[in-house]
C-alpha cells in the first residue's frame, strides 16, 4: 500500500529554527550564519570585526568546531560572549544545536549574533538555524571556481566576502572570475573583497553589517 507523505525532510530542523528566529526577533538580534571552507578566515573576520565595532555594536558569537574550544577562546579575548559548540563528527550546526547555546547568552545585551558554522562548503547550507542572513567567506587560496562546485551555499548567501586578497599575487585566483561565477549562481549576492591580515575592505564590511543591523532594528543601537 502506498501512502502520501509530502513532507519536507528538514521540517524538524526548520521548526526549531523558526522558534530561534522568533526569540531573536523579540530580542532585536540581527543574526548571521557565517559559513566557509575550513580556514577561510571566519574567526579572523570576527576578531577584526570586534575591534572595529567596539563601543558601537555589541557582538555575540556561537561557534561550532569539531573538537577544540580554540575559536571561542580567540573571540573571548575581545570581551565578546562566545559559546563553543563542539560538534563531534557533525559537519554543520543545526537549529537544535544553536538553540542549546542560547540559554548561555544574554541576548538582551547583544545587537549582532554571529553563528560561526563548521568549516565546510556543503553541509551548513542545508540547515537554517534561525538567521536573518547567511553570509560566506571564499578565500583566494581556494580557487575562483568554487561557486560552480558548491552552488547551494552561494545561492543562499546574501553576502560573499572574498578574503586573503593580500595573497592574490601568489595565486592564480581571478577576482573577476570569482565574482562572475558567484553572480551567475546568485545575481543578488553582495560581494566585498577583504583581507583580515592587512585590513583591506573591512570598512566596507562593517558598513554592510551596520546597514543590515539598522534595517532590522530601525537603528536602535545601544552602548
Amino acid at each position, binding site marked *: 500500500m*502506498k501512502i502520501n507523505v509530502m513532507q519536507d*525532510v528538514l521540517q524538524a530542523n526548520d521548526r526549531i529554527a523558526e522558534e530561534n528566529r522568533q526569540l531573536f526577533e523579540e530580542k532585536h538580534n540581527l543574526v548571521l550564519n557565517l559559513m566557509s571552507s575550513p580556514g577561510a578566515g571566519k574567526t579572523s573576520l570576527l576578531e577584526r570585526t570586534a575591534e572595529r565595532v567596539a563601543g558601537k555594536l555589541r557582538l555575540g558569537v556561537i561557534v561550532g568546531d569539531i573538537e577544540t574550544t580554540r575559536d571561542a577562546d580567540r573571540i573571548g579575548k575581545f570581551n565578546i560572549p562566545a559559546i563553543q559548540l563542539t560538534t563531534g563528527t557533525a559537519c554543520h550546526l543545526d537549529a537544535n544545536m544553536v538553540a542549546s547555546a542560547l540559554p548561555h547568552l544574554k541576548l538582551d545585551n547583544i545587537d549582532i549574533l554571529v553563528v560561526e558554522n563548521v568549516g565546510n562548503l556543503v553541509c551548513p547550507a542545508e540547515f537554517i538555524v534561525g538567521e536573518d542572513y547567511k553570509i560566506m567567506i571564499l578565500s583566494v587560496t581556494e580557487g575562483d571556481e568554487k561557486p560552480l562546485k558548491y552552488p*547551494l551555499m552561494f545561492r543562499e548567501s546574501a553576502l560573499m566576502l572574498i578574503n586573503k586578497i593580500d595573497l592574490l599575487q601568489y595565486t592564480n585566483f581571478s577576482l573577476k572570475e570569482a565574482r562572475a561565477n558567484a553572480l551567475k549562481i546568485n545575481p543578488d549576492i553582495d560581494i566585498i573583497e577583504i583581507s583580515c591580515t592587512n585590513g583591506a575592505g573591512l570598512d566596507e564590511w562593517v558598513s554592510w553589517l551596520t546597514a543590515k543591523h539598522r534595517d532590522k532594528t530601525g537603528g536602535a543601537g545601544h552602548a
Partner: protein
Amino acid sequence: MHEMGIAQNILDIALSAAGKEGASKITRINLVAGELRGIVPLQLTFCFGLVSKDTIAGGAYLNIDEVPVSGHCDGCNSDFSIKEYEYVCPKCGSTKIQLIGGTELSIKDIEIE
C-alpha cells in the same frame, strides 16, 4: 557528511507516517531531491541503511528522484530549465528569476505492508 542527518530525518518521517497506518513494514520510500541540494544518492542510501537497520524500514528501498533546476522569469512570465547555473531567461534575457525547482528535499510517499 550531512547525509547522516538527512537519513535520520527521512527515517523519522517515514516511521511516523507508517505508524499512523499501523504498518508492519516499510518497503519503499520515494524521495524528491533538488539538484541544488547536492545530495549524493549513494551516500544517502548507505546512511539510510545504517540508521534504519533495526526498524520496520530496515531493507526499504530508498528511491531518489533528482529534480533539475528550473526557473520562472518575472519579466516575460515563462518557465524554463536552468543548465550550468545560467540564471538568465532564455527568452528575454532577464536575470530576475525565481527558482521553481531544484531546491526541494521532501518525502513524496512511502510504500508499506
